[in-house]
């Protein structure tokens, strides 16, 4: 029999101390955390029996791709943006970065298709879906700044063309795609941190709610 059941949080203080702890923000944060994402929800070793399709692995493969994007990216940023043009090893790491980015987008979109046809936003999971779309958008922006950071013909032409979209929308005044320094800084620091943070939020939301139930006869959840 599964041991999943409610139990009092392990962190409840003894009754005698409760008045003194009543105003504690630390305690309140910890209790909220225990309620929203207790350890056995973050790392459950069992899943509902209907989690039995390969469609369910697209999400974790996307995460794996992101890990390789970041690892290869860290090496590239450590060696500087010119390195991959100058050495064979450098070019190989750029290739790792290029193909892991392709894999990231491929599996993220497959994950989107899967979640769409499963209507994964049901039963209180709408925000999880919305955060997923935000990740998609910011990933596109991250890739865009990456293409601008290549220091090759592609970067030149993408800059010259894309400036019209940025300028037409007004943000070109602040986001200058022809300014390599600005694009590179966004690409290696600000945007990867943002993507990673929102991915963590997305995963926490998935784990705290659990996998959505199959679509029932009236479209809602069923046993």
């Amino acid at each position, binding site marked *: 029999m599964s041991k999943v059941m*409610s139990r009092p949080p392990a962190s409840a203080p003894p009754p005698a101390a409760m008045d003194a702890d009543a105003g504690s923000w630390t305690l309140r944060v910890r209790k909220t955390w225990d309620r929203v994402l207790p350890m056995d929800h973050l790392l459950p070793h069992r899943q509902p029996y*209907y989690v039995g399709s390969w469609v369910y692995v697209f999400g974790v493969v996307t995460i794996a791709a992101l890990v390789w994007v970041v690892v290869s990216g860290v090496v590239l940023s450590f060696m500087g943006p010119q390195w991959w043009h100058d050495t064979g090893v450098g070019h190989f790491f750029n290739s790792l970065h290029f193909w892991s980015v392709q894999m990231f987008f491929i599996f993220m979109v497959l994950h989107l298709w899967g979640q*769409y046809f499963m*209507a994964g936003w049901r039963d209180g999971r709408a925000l999880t879906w919305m955060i997923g779309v935000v990740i998609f958008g910011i990933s596109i922006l991250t890739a865009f700044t990456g293409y601008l950071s290549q220091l090759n013909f592609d970067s030149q032409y993408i800059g010259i063309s894309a400036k019209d979209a940025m300028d037409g929308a007004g943000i070109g005044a602040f986001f200058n795609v022809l300014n390599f320094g600005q694009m590179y800084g966004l690409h290696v620091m600000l945007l990867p941190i943002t993507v990673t943070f929102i991915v963590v939020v997305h995963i926490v939301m998935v784990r705290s709610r659990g996998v959505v139930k199959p679509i029932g006869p009236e479209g809602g959840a069923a046993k």
Partner: protein
Amino acid sequence: MKMLKQEMTQEEYYRGVRMVPYDLVKELFLALAGLGIFVFVLAAAFSSPDVPTVTIQQWAQNDPVDFVSTAAGELAGTTTSAGYGAPYNNAGGEQTWGPFAPQIWFGQRIPIDSANDFVIQPLKYASAGNPGLTTAISTWTSADGDQQTKWVTAYTDALAKATYADGKVSVADGDYGPLPVMMSALLTQGQSGGLDGLLTGAGHFYQVDYTKALLFMGDGNYLFDLADQQNLSGDQWGMMNETGSYPGQTWLWLYTAWYQVWPFTSDTGVLGLNGGNADLGVVVLMTLLTAALALIPLIPILRDIPRWVPIHRLIWRDYYAPKKSAAPARA
């Protein structure tokens, strides 16, 4: 309808649902290893694209007539950058959609003076020790607007039939004022490679901003012709494409698709949207569509399609299968 917060705990949500062993951490490590190996193989087999940059020097050497025509156009104020408007200058070429004009609203925050930045200032650097060029430059800058327009219009017309030999662009005789001397000097400067450095680094040591050099190159045809050969141009679904035989940015398919269809291919268009403000129009359209994607849980029909399309019946076929008369589900 519960949209954002689940009002019950997981224990309540899964009550009555049979749970089976499922190793998330092992799955993550398998994914990391499997995908890592696959990416390694792809990188080893196919490498990655790296078409080298085009320099102003190459432009001046390989298409000198285009180079000189572009430079003359900067002085005439007829190039793309000269007529662009915000954020570069106040020439008034901004894209608007009725009263919606964010390009104007955000102002000129990247000041570029095409004629001065791309032609006059670089020539002043080259004029050290060259009295003929110094005179030509001051003849140009001290002439009034009408005189400048006369000279440059005549020169641009003549360039349509220009020839190039021995490092010189030659045109038919005519009254072009100081322009032939200036353009010849700029061409020499370009072909020597000096302009590449001047347009990025003049006046300071470190250089990370390529706005001037790229705007100048973007005013000519050379860069665009090369992009065309690689199918990168806007009317070739270029946003999706990569140099060489590599996959590009397939996720931008819808963004670039709009540039291939009406109203954005038409001069007249509809509702004020046409080729002239296509960039603004497509940004607005794609922002709305992306917002709609995010808000699917709230949009009728779009959120109901998954129920109507039987794909979920394949994904959850164990759940929908007729129940065998086995032991009842145990919590």
